[in-house]
């Protein structure tokens, strides 16, 4: 075993040189990716990266602090609208607007965190669900926000270059995603993250050790909302057009699925969950046009059920997936990854 010489080695991100090696490989992969793929694939990758950002934030709240939110689509909507409106009305550049939108979302997160202090479990779930729905209802009824028709997103300019293709946007989005993943990893291994985990494990003990529950719980909501807000701003850019129906209840549920499937309380879990669930979601959306399965499902659907119900197949499958993970692999894909790692450690013995 390697000898530790400094206490920082306890908590450093790359515990062994081999970790640095794999990270560099990953970075090279991310750089090469746009050179070897089509524009359509890049739009998929962008969408996945944005969902990873939301999952990172939601995991802080759900996985680390042990709270729940069924309304994260609301924060994403706030971030998206704030970014667009700040650019349109105040004439801000994209980056300042994005950061400010993150803070606007964080502000709402803080406000939602206040009543959440008195709520737990299913009650908190209902309260956050109500919040998410209220946001889209309010946006949909106000002409300032473009109502049901939505808003057109202005083209973004960075240093005089207008970004339009998915490959150009990829550079911006993936840099932000990597930075925010690292920031989240930093937070969770610091004093603040430790306090949040302590609240999840035993709030009474955390309190008697001097952790201010009210402050840290609302802080967790705020940081989580900040991540969702920034993701919302990026989402607006890749969509080019936003309206309230994008940020519906199903979106919130999908974010929660990403956390559970990926692994609650793990950064790698957020990343894996974001990738896998987004990918599945996009593929299942077009399930009827898939070879073999598509025809089979249409056949089943027309024979025993209604034809119009077929798109719901996606929700059914996600429901099954969630149940299976909660029952058989509560640590999600991250748990599976840990077991694979353990197995290979002593291979071939």
């Amino acid at each position, binding site marked *: 075993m390697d000898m530790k010489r*400094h*206490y*920082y080695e*306890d*908590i*450093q991100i790359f515990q062994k040189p081999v970790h640095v090696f794999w990270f560099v490989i990953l970075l090279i992969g991310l750089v090469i990716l746009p050179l070897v793929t089509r524009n359509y694939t890049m739009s998929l990758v962008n969408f996945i990266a944005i969902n990873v950002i939301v999952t990172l934030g939601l995991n802080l709240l759900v996985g680390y602090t042990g709270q729940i939110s069924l309304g994260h689509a609301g924060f994403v909507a706030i971030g998206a609208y704030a970014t667009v409106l700040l650019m349109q009305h105040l004439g801000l550049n994209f980056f300042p607007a994005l950061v400010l939108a993150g803070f606007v979302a964080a502000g709402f997160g803080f406000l939602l965190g206040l009543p959440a202090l008195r709520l737990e479990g299913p009650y908190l779930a209902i309260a956050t669900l109500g919040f998410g729905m209220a946001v889209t209802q309010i946006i949909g009824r106000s002409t300032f926000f473009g109502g049901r028709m939505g808003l057109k997103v202005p083209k973004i300019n960075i240093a005089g270059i207008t970004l339009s293709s998915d490959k150009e946007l990829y550079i911006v989005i993936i840099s932000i995603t990597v930075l925010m993943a*690292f*920031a*989240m990893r*930093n*937070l969770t*291994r*610091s*004093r*603040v*993250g*430790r*306090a949040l*985990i*302590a609240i999840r*494990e*035993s709030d*009474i*003990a*955390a*309190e*008697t*050790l*001097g*952790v*201010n*529950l009210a402050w840290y719980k609302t*802080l967790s909501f705020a*940081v989580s909302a900040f991540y969702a807000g920034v993701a919302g701003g990026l989402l607006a850019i890749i969509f080019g057009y936003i309206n309230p129906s994008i940020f519906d209840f199903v979106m919130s549920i999908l974010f929660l699925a990403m956390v559970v499937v990926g692994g609650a309380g793990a950064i790698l879990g957020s990343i894996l969950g974001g990738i896998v669930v987004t990918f599945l979601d996009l593929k299942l959306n077009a399930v009827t046009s898939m070879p073999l399965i598509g025809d089979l499902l249409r056949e089943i659907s027309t024979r025993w059920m209604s034809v119009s119900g077929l798109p719901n197949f996606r929700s059914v499958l996600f429901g099954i997936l969630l149940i299976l993970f909660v029952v058989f692999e509560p640590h999600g894909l991250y748990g599976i990854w840990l077991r694979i790692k353990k197995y290979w450690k002593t291979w071939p013995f």
Partner: protein
Amino acid sequence: MNDFFTVTGLTRTFGGVVAIDALDFAQKKGSIFSIIGPNGAGKTTLFNCISGIYRPDSGEICFQGRRIDGLKPDAIARHGIARTFQNLELFFRMTTMENLMLGRHIHMRTNIWHGLTMFHKNSTAAREEAEHREKVEHIIDLLDLQSARDVPVGALPYGRQKLVELGRALALEPSLLLLDEPSAGMTSDERQDLFFWIKDIQQELGVSILMIEHNMQMVMDISDRVLAIDFGKKLVEGTPEEVAAHPEVIKAYLGED
């Protein structure tokens, strides 16, 4: 009297049940003060009032000259009062080191921004982290917990879990340490070690200890003063010998003949 730690006229009821009934006592700085009494006498309720988990109905709790009753638990921790729990309130999925680091929480300054930007070894948060890990290492040494250092606490045997909880309270560097049945569930060897550690904590670290304990041998050997309560009321308070000789205590502990 003294003004280190005093409880005056403390009362706490649950519905119609009076758990603590106008209780008075005072503890001297640097002493070991034990509270004994049968199950349901109100001992743990008293601890919960002191550490702010329950709000007393009436009465005063003063610590180092300041009223602390009615404050939130985290504010009381910042006043320098730490505690352990009768039925372990550990962070079971965190390692021993991380559990003890929570004890350093009030001594650390890392905020959300420092945390997010802990990118390298020389960042503010990382330097503070290393500094406090070193302090926690001393407590791990003191309580012989080296082998448990990086093990999730949930995987440790019960006796060691109790020690981790003691260590976590110590990491807070309290002036007053509340121990709720520290020796419960321990083997006689572990109890022997615990006895010396509690003595060390009092004498070498200068921490005052307020302790609930059922093991009379330990109470008699270690305490400077003993308070016996029943039905939330004071039966008797005095030196261990005085309390042991009191007829009500003999009745409660040995039974009538």
